[in-house]
């Protein structure tokens, strides 16, 4: 089962910060562990909230606002997608993730919706 690990409230050091190299090495070691177990699907760090733009369409009109959808104290910093045996493995890896020591990680299963086609365009094109 695939799980998304949503990383909240975790400051990311920038290149040039004194702890950047160490932090990068630890995050890479975490990804190595995920690959070693064969569960790594992807990891997606996000730009900070000040870059967020929110879109909603009402009555056919796209409404665009500056900022994240919810003004809360919980800042989504990125996500991993891991293909784990069960929730135990996903929780175990979330606890191994270095970001869990600073922020918090929400583990959510990815749902299989029958008939939903989310294959990348190139695959769809070649299969025709």
């Amino acid at each position, binding site marked *: *089962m695939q*799980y998304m690990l949503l990383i909240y409230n975790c400051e990311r050091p920038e290149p040039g910060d004194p702890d950047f190299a160490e932090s990068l090495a630890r995050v890479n070691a975490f990804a190595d562990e995920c690959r070693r177990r064969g569960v790594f699907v992807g990891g997606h760090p996000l730009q900070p909230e000040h870059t967020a733009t929110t879109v909603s369409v009402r009555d056919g009109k796209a409404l665009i606002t500056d900022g994240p959808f919810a003004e809360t104290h919980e800042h989504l910093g990125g996500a991993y997608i891991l293909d*784990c045996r*069960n*929730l*135990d493995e*996903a*929780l*175990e890896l979330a606890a191994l993730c270095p970001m869990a020591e600073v922020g918090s990680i929400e583990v959510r*299963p990815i*749902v*299989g*919706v*029958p*008939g939903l086609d989310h294959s990348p365009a190139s695959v769809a094109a070649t299969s025709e």
Partner: protein
Amino acid sequence: MSPVPVLQQVYGEHRGRMLAALIRVLGDFELAEDALQDACTLALRKWGDVVPDDPIAWLLTAARNSAIDRLRQARVRREKLPQLAGQLAIESTMTDIGADSLLRMGDERLSLIFTCCHPALAEDARIALTLQAVAGLTAAQIARRFLVSESTLAQRLVRAKRKIRDAGISLEVPADHLLPERLSGVLAVVYLIFTQGYTAADDQPEHRTLRQEAIRLGKLVATLMPDEPEALGLVALLLLHDSRAAARYTQAGDVILLADQDRLRWDRAEITEAIGLLDRALRLGRPGPYQLQAAIAALHAQAPTADETDWPRIAALYAELLAVEPSPVVALNHAVAVAMATTSEEGLALIDRIDGLDRYHLLHSARADLLRRLGHTAAAAAEYRRAHELATNPADRRFLAHRLHDLDRQESR
């Protein structure tokens, strides 16, 4: 025997195992429960004059067939209404539901207990689910015992069961490296169930059954995991607590302290059983918090009178418990045991070093008690007053008021 009592007997005795096996193969609590219910309904209709040779096998096969029917119906509905989908995982298990694989299964109750006590579920959901799925209590019974409405409790159960299914909570006994932590989670749930039946001042039959369920659950875990000394230790501890249940309160519901209890009212059979289990646990050579607490309770249980209590050994056991499970409450119990084993001054000095229990009434009443023994009546009265302010349980408050009253009388003499 006619079919109805046979069905009642088989269901009563084997419900847990049948349900556990069905949950394991179906991967879905609600489907398993519905299927077992269908099987029983069918048995009532079909068994007529002749009860099958192996009623359990018959029920499991019928439940399996009903589950397959229910899954088919769900698929038909889903094909008509594609937006109702989302049960792909269940469908893929359908092919695995062989009748013989179900009948060949061993005891699946252990994995069921671990699933019900999974840390990804809220604590109240773990308790409710364990009592329903493993112990076989109805939602109404659990709701009554935990003083919540039946609909709240039913909701809690449904949500937990769906989370288990949809979040991929494992239906197996956890992997070895997770086992110690997860087992202590299971034992904690059993202990919480017991406590719920032990803390109320009025000893209603409902409380007794809750304690018995907890002891039964603890024994089930200890039987299924015979090499786990903490499971045995927990059962011993629960039995020792339970052995004193009848002696803990006066008829009027007032607290009777351990030292003042009528020891003839302690349940000797439970004490003997507990000590046997504790010996077995200790022989495994891996002491832990439950075994240490049981050893302490056993020393109290074995003392013919309060004055003959082996306080030096109790103090030493509390010191060991403090080392493995440091907590201010354990430190307080240790201090009191030291006071009893040595002098009140030493006990008071230890109490003064405890942090974080300033609002705990038992800390103040312990201090009051030691001050009283040392003849510091005014200081003792002040501590009893503070304890009385902080206590919330009516029986505790009455007890502290009595103590205060006695002290005032002493002083005015």
